[in-house]
């Protein structure tokens, strides 16, 4: 066979193409800067995915708009019955926030599993969600918990449900001049949950991740939420598993429900694992995550 040029050959040198850089301090200024930059602008929200892309010269934006100076995008609070986390809150801050740990422990747990310690101290919740990496941990959590994404644009703010936000691999519902400003997680009292991340080394991306939450009544599962990381181009909400889990009261019933895990998924095959193996793993991990959340 004849050889073809490697996709990354330009990036051997690991120095980005030159770009301009602005660091606004308000959301309005950030939106204006992104709008002015047009197609040539990229938003820097921690940079843990963007900088490697620039260094590999897979992208060469003329302008980076750094949201790091927008203080209002940082931190967690209650607002109208929802837990609201600012887009520029770092994974480490999410993982250690007493408020998040109490009200949305699944979010805190998943944030604690992102990348490595350095990544968690620079990478942000909003950056990770807007990057929409199929192997990222947080999109599946947002989809499992029916989070709402708040987007700011030149004509004001709008809200998009998490399940509509992720539209394709590395692609979201964000418009050209829109900035993800905060994520609203509905309060879920009485729910328990967990995130099962299966990866080959601690710093590697998930082969498969399972975000699961359940609410029990009288010893059996009354409601369940299950979503998968890296089982398709976007996070997959496992609706048939969720339906089958209702009424489950023991491990056997959970395993039977988890057998539906592969339905509606389209996982990749790569050097870390085949699609067939990922489907199998999704089932095993779902059973484990749900059983653990339900205390079976």
């Amino acid at each position, binding site marked *: *066979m*004849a*050889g*073809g*040029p*490697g*996709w*990354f*050959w*330009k*990036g*051997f*040198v*690991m*120095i980005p*193409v*030159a770009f301009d850089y602005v660091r606004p301090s308000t959301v309005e200024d950030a939106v204006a800067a992104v709008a002015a930059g047009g197609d040539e602008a990229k938003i820097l929200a921690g940079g843990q995915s963007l900088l490697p892309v620039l260094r*590999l010269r897979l992208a060469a934006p003329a302008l980076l708009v750094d949201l790091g100076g927008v203080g209002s995008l940082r931190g967690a609070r209650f607002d109208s019955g929802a837990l609201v986390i600012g887009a520029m809150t770092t994974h480490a801050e999410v993982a250690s926030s007493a408020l998040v740990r109490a009200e949305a422990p699944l979010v805190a747990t998943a944030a604690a599993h992102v990348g*490595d310690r350095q990544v968690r101290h620079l990478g942000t919740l909003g950056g990770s969600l807007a990057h929409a990496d199929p192997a990222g941990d947080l999109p599946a959590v947002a989809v499992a918990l029916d989070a709402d994404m708040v987007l700011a644009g030149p004509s004001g703010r709008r809200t998009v449900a998490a399940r509509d936000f992720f539209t394709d691999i590395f692609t979201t519902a964000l418009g050209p001049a829109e900035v993800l400003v905060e994520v609203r997680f509905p309060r879920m009292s009485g729910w328990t949950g967990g995130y099962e991340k*299966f990866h*080959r*080394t*601690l*710093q*590697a*991306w998930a*082969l498969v991740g399972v975000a699961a939450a359940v609410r029990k009544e009288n010893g059996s599962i009354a409601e369940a939420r299950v979503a998968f990381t890296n089982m398709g181009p976007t996070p997959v909400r496992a609706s048939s598993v969720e339906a089958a889990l209702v009424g489950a009261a023991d491990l056997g019933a959970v395993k039977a429900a988890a057998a539906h895990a592969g339905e509606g998924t389209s996982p990749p*095959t*790569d*050097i*870390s*694992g*085949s699609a*067939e*193996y990922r489907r*199998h*793993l999704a089932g*095993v*991990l779902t059973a484990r995550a749900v059983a653990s959340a339900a205390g079976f």
Partner: protein
Amino acid sequence: MTATIAQPEVGRARLRKEDARLVTGRTRWTENITLPGMLHLAILRSPYAHARITSVNTAPALDRPNVIAAFSGADVAETQGVLACAWPVTEDMVAPTYTPLAVTEVRHVGEPVAVVVARDRASAVDALEAIEVDYEPLPVVLGLEEALAEGSPLVHSDKGTNKCYTWIFDSAEAGTGGNAVQAEADAEVVIKRRYVQQRLIPSSMEPRSVIVDPSGGEWTMYSATQIPHIVRFLLSATTGTPEHKIRVIAPDVGGGFGGKIGVTPEEWIAFTAANRVGRPVKYTESRAESMVSAHHGRDVIQDITLSARRDGTLTGVSVKLIANMGAYLGVVGPGVPLLGAFMYNAIYKVPAYRFECTGVFTNTTKTDAYRGAGRPEATYAIERAMDELAAELGLDPVEIRRRNWITHEEFPFTTVCGLVYDSGNYEAATEKALSLLGYDDLRAEQAARRASNDPVQLGIGVSTYTEMCGLAPSRILGALRYGAGGWESATIRVLATGKVEVITGTTPHGQGHVTAWSQIVADQLGVPFDDISVLYGDTRVANKGMDTYGSRSLAVGGIALVNACEKVRDKAKVVAAHMLECSADDLEFTDGAFRVRGNPEAAKTLADVALAVFTAHNLPDGIEPQLDSEATFDPSTFSFPHGTHLCATEVDTETGQVKIRRYVCVDDVGKVINPLIVEGQVHGGVAQGIAQALFEDAVYDESGNLITGSFAEYLLPSAADLPTLEADRTETPATTHPLGAKGVGEAGTIAATPAVVNAIVDALRPRGVHDVMMPCTPERVWRAAQDGSGRGSS
């Protein structure tokens, strides 16, 4: 004044002198060095695994900002020199011309094609995009057996074959043992297995970096290399530059693991670039460049046959290898399998042995030494196969080894390869390891988990290894057709104040030579540990040396050091006797000073003597006023460290996840100079061995692109992925030299890989599993657990 040393330095767990500067990075990494007027170069590399270069136009790059020069291989074809292979293992080995920059054809992705020199690195990198290259793609061959097949595309069409060499050792022909083919025909039991050593990428913390300064009619090269002396010799030999005009400095080097044993295209390109612009030029590779262009390791298919009697006694071993050379030959690349050739018999009494290795060219990055070089491959194959023999005969893996190993009373033992193992005690190391692990209790737990069909199964892996260290007796290297010797050099300079400068021809790059050499010299000369400096890595300071690889620095260089110290003592003793007004025969060197026999208070330290020699006011007649000395040492044989590593793994049969629950190792590296350094070497070595078993794998796609070109895909384990090591030692000194040390740099890497894989296979053996391909990914382990195959799709 009779200062004495409170306790021997050798054997103390001294913290390393060099760590503060190395760990903080406030030191002389090549990348940290800036010379006046220095320029920076960037290299355009081939995106094709195989293509003809039809044209290169570098002119547009010259219009880019800050660019000083740009050139292609064709522009420097007459002056760039060649990269030599120093180990033509057979008379008829095919050795293609290997130029630093490709001139007419590229043969692997990442091969250098053109160069930009600019005022700063970023400008040089940006200007690469302006260079226009036309390629005409050619057929690619990647697989070893495909490359040997009739009609395969050729990596070097002018050679007419992809076969580099076939090298054979047969104990019957050598007269060192019986006929392995006959042994197989006569055997009661035959075990035949194929193992695949995947391709690995040596990954040191510091990437390669080089500066060439052509000022003043001579050439100074700073390079992050393990082998400055060999680089100097070959730069002279292949470019015609007089050797005395070349100075090579390996300043501080941040790890190598064999990956910096090389005469590299990048060093030669920097030399060529510096000559073209007449100014110092620096090149520092990115990690991505390193992974695709610095040499790789392993990549060998191994077919091993054990012949045995039903009682488990080995009657013969045969090995047939196909080794991937890559597209070109590294400086010792073809010889790497030969370093393992005499180790497949391992610690066992093997009566008959045959070894055959065929080297093959493919359109991949060249291979060369990687920690252990040949010996990990050998140990893996024999230790995996011994487990298979045990399983076939229903014996415990430890028992099959007991029935075959050389017992401690049998040393010195001449092996089937003709090597003389001077000392060892396999029984003691194994007993200690079994007891530390609690072997019998874990076997009982394993039985219980099997009985209850626990989804998490337990496996116990055994690896008893030896290796040949202390490379190497020059005569043996000559017999193996290696291009240089294996001696080592040491120089002692005694300063006026009694402080001591030690010069070693070895080239440390993280091993802690400064500390260990100081400990040895402290005891030898009675000088405090802190009063000793160790100089190295500069051919104008350490003018003679064979550098650092193959666990040789201490086992060879350390002996040169001891011999040099002895010469200093001999000189100093004459002066001390003169000062004490006695006969030199009446003095003995004890407790760090020259003392009069029977009157130990009458004494002179080296510092006393050094000042007397410096002033030279009252020296005996005919004595030169200096105490310096120099010694070179050529070993008569190798050294043979050994040990027993035991690994207990939990294998989740539902997911294929492997968790190492316990890892116990008992190593016998002979006399220990510094136990902290030994422990560090074992920890790092075991980590790299585990990494081969479970994580690391360099993978090409069908076009020859390295798809594991970053650490996102090429998985290096971190501390969090590794178990707590339980490391202990036995100490059986080498008997062939005065230091008793055997070498420790590669031991852990050699031992660990089969220990881990044996444990995984042991866990799954009741399911019919007899192998899992490396790296044992969760998917491969899961598939093996399902169908017994161990041949997962990834």
